[in-house]
């Protein structure tokens, strides 16, 4: 176990209206066994004791599944490692004396609320627009009534693993939410249960995505490269097929 002395450059912004700025902090004796969020805990304890406002950052499960955490660390969404969330990033991946730059997700659709916290409620509204299968409680047929090929079910799960963290939007130069939207569209359309509403769903979700001010996908593939769950670009191609299909099929649209 080694200890690190680090220099931090953290985005500080009091609230939505504040313009925000970077503030520098020096921090000593950081164990390499800490997660980066624990390092921020240590920083915050220190700041509180000094009588200054601690850094606000989002987190909850701290094991990579709730999708709360998300910091742009040294120029990368969720930091330098692939396929992990911010809370799963350990300090051993940094060097003694290193400067670590911490920024909030940047996108019009994700306004900064405070410091490193952003408002991702746009994602909820996209799901509310169509990211579901419309079945009411009760009356579902027996779970084994419709066999689903193992392969299809696994492929659906691949897409369903999205944790809604927003790293895709953060990494994308266009702030596009295509990977997030496509992951849900692909998850549902890969299952027989999701097919009846496929046309309606893809229109509704894409419309909402545009309304929320996210950009258009230009296939840079940054989203998939930075996605902690490794959601594949395949889902975006699939969404487009769905959209073309729906455009040709659906009436009144």
């Amino acid at each position, binding site marked *: 176990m080694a200890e690190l002395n680090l220099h931090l450059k953290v985005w500080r912004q009091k609230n939505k209206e504040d313009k925000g700025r970077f503030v520098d902090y020096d921090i000593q004796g950081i164990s390499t066994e800490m*997660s980066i969020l624990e390092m921020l805990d240590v920083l915050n304890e220190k700041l509180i004791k000094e009588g200054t406002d601690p850094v606000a950052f989002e987190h909850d499960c701290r094991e990579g*599944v709730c*999708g709360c955490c998300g910091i742009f660390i040294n120029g990368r969404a969720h930091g330098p490692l692939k396929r992990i969330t911010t809370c799963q990033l350990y300090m051993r991946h940094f060097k003694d004396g290193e400067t670590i730059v911490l920024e909030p997700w940047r996108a019009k659709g994700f306004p900064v609320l405070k410091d490193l916290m952003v408002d991702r409620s746009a994602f909820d509204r996209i*799901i509310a627009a169509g990211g*579901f299968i419309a*079945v009411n409680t009760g009356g579902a047929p027996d779970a084994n009534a419709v066999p689903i090929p193992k392969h299809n079910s696994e492929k659906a799960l691949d897409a369903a693993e999205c944790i809604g963290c927003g790293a895709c939007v953060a990494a994308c130069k266009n702030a596009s939410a295509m990977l997030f939207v496509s992951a849900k569209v692909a998850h549902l359309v890969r299952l027989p249960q999701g097919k009846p509403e496929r046309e309606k769903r893809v229109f509704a979700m894409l419309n909402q995505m545009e309304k929320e001010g996210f950009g258009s996908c230009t296939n840079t593939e940054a989203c998939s490269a930075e996605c902690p769950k490794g959601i594949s670009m395949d889902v975006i191609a699939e969404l487009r097929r769905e959209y073309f299909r729906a455009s040709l099929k659906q009436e009144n649209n």
Partner: protein
Amino acid sequence: MKLDSKIPAGNLAEKWSNQKFNYKLVNPANKRKYEIIVVGTGLAGASAAASLAELGYKVKAFCYQDSPRRAHSIAAQGGINASKNYQNDGDSVYRLFYDTVKGGDYRSREANVYRLAEVSSNIIDQCVAQGVPFAREYGGLLDNRSFGGAQVSRTFYARGETGQQLLLGAYSAMMRQVGMGNIELFTRSDIQDIVVVDGRARGIVLRNMVSGQIQSYVADAVILATGGYGNVFYLSTNAKGCNATAIWRAHKKGALFANPCFTQIHPTCIPVSGSYQSKLTLMSESLRNDGRIWVPKDPKDKRAPNEIPEFERDYFLERKYPSFGNLVPRDVASRNAKEMIDDGKGVGLTGKAVYLDFAEAIQRLGKDTIIEKYGNLFEMYEQITNEDPYKVPMRIYPASHYTMGGLWVDYNLMTTIPGLFALGECNFSDHGANRLGASALMQGLADGYFIISYSISDYLAQLKKDKLTTDAPEFKNSEKEVDNKIKRLLNINGSKTVDELHRELGIVMWDYVGMSRNAEGLNKAKKMIKDIRDDFWKNVKIIGTNEEINQSLEKAARVADFLELGELIAEDALQRNESCGGHFREESQTEENEAKRDDENCSHVAAWEYSGADKPEVLHKEQLQFEFVKPSQRSYK
């Protein structure tokens, strides 16, 4: 106060059908006149909100996260039980019921558990219809795995992320209703109080976590589905934000709190690495199928694990429980690990861990098989610890994981405050003194999808509609109270951070109210918790104001409640003079140091009534009747 569990009469198998028939219904056209508040959007809350909105009720849903999808149910890994008997291995509603009652060490209500087993099948149907991609076999039918405490294979799963997939199903059902305008969603809302008017729960008071505003909402009924209180131990497998505030406030407003001392410690978690540790990560229980648990025989032995020869190792579970070996239930495994560590045989830098060794399994089955079975867990372990478990044995340590205790509810899931319901982990209803793996998800969804919509209609149908608004004095008083508490917290300006104080509480809880408890320790703990509480109210330091995002303030309000709840847990543990399930009283053990129940004196639910600040809580007992299963002593030798 007389506790009436309202268990319907009749044969076990017919109780629920009879009850459903006897419930009064709300006329469909009238449903939209009723407003229901659902606090919590985990499996229990989201499923309840969706189902009620589908029926036509006007629902308001609240959570503290930025999105309902992030409730802690998302973190459940292993799976969900259901008595489908798809494997043809002899499962049935009755067997699931029996296993659950036995697993809970005969401290749960038979009728509730039977109903849980009965609706379990519908849950799987519902989830599949919503698009939950459960694991399947090549033929396209659903796959199952086995889980602890059962001899049949009845656990449905989706890789290691069953909770996530189930929650996303419930979440999307709920968001559909949000989109249709039937549910109004309030995220980043920290519930601070429950409002009771004329003896009925009529609303909530919350702090808007962005603006700091104290806001009130009125309704005809209030449902709490706010999860467990495992964070009272500071370090736990729960998410950082998990809290007891809503149920504790309800408790203070008159809802009895049942079996607070029934907490579950999970044996296989990644150990603490230093004082900065903020939470503990669970490693699936399935690892104990192939891993062997050991410590060095000699406490002074500080050699690297691979240098310790076989004969100088103590495979203590295999030694003490030859027939179950490493597969003893969670509580037994946890307690034995603690014993070894208390004897100074703990391993690793901190000495607070035991080895979970796969060397023998790798040799026997080959590395490829191990990768296939546990690859992702090994990866996760390596990421956190930087040690390669294929080469060096894993280090594991028990951690607080689940709370069986919670708000007392009757058969209809209503607390002792009329109109206040509690669902999911925050009630006490189904798991007795110990919860079986994969049964919490089942319970949350059973409550939310299939029970509450019936039982709440019975309550609402008998209600006289009035025109109560949040201008009522009860709301104003409550708002003032919350506001005062926040002001008080912000004005202390002491010298300790909230986390420091929470950690202090956690240590006391862990040391004296953890895996192994005795009267002396519990009395000591009560005193120590009170001291920390006093210290908290004198010495806590919170920066900033209420009128902004203030994460320290949020934490402080939660810890303030944990500091009260912690004392009640200790008190409950003290009053329960027996060992059962997750509650181990050193005074009550067999000659072989195993947990010894006292069915004669302790076959009851301990329900606590709040009676004012700094006054001792009043204990009420609900006697448990076992008509169908005969309680017997567990043995794993």
